[in-house]
């Protein structure tokens, strides 16, 4: 779930950078979709991690754990990202500041990833096991299968969230067009 979250936020950051360069709705919509799905999975990472931590570490939460805290910060940053998007009436006006926030927020991901090495005495998490392949074959297979399924589910969610954003954009544009036409009609009519 954490890998899927990182992937969604990286997609969000790439799409945000794409928006800042191209300034098209497609990039902004993709960033929004990936950001929302990433925030949802990030919340699940924190909650299910807590559920897992209780029997394994005998604690639900540890405020001094750098990986937990940096993940919480990531979640809050992207929650802020979504709140910022929701604060504007026009999606076009929200796109630029949101893209900048996404590009700043994503910088937390390498920090989360390296935190267990940089502050090894301030975390309950073990050091990286995947990159050094310190996993049994069957466990590795299960993990890889889990990652594959999670990535497919995340892609499906992002695709459908993108579709919703696309339709919302069209509806908004249609509304604006209708309002302009009504104004013009009323102007001509006296």
């Amino acid at each position, binding site marked *: 779930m954490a890998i899927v979250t990182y992937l969604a936020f990286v997609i969000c950051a790439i799409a945000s950078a794409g928006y800042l360069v191209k300034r098209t709705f497609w990039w902004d919509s993709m960033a929004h979709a990936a950001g929302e799905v990433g925030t949802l999975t990030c919340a699940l990472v924190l909650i299910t991690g807590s559920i897992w931590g209780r029997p394994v570490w005998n604690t639900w939460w540890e405020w001094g754990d750098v990986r937990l805290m940096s993940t919480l910060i990531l979640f809050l940053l992207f929650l802020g990202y979504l709140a910022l998007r929701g604060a504007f009436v026009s999606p076009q006006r929200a796109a630029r500041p949101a893209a900048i926030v996404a590009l700043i927020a994503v910088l937390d991901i390498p920090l989360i990833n390296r935190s267990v090495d940089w502050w090894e005495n301030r975390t309950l998490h073990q050091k990286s096991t995947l990159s050094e392949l310190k996993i049994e074959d069957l466990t590795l297979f299960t993990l890889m299968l889990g990652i594959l399924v999670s990535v497919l589910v995340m892609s499906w*969610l992002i695709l459908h969230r993108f579709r919703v954003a696309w339709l919302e954009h069209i509806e908004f544009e249609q509304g604006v067009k209708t309002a302009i036409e009504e104004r013009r009609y009323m102007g001509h009519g006296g």
Partner: protein
Amino acid sequence: MTHLGYLLAGWGLSSLVILLYAVRLLKRGAQLSARVPSEYARWMSSPKQNNG
């Protein structure tokens, strides 16, 4: 609670949240599809001029 209980709680919660989100997306997509003109309802075939 046993370890199995924690395991089921984690999987159950994740599955439920993802399922509810997916259903919400599908419902919202269907609602919007009904509101926009039919040529836009199938988003993959939307005209290019609405691309930016």
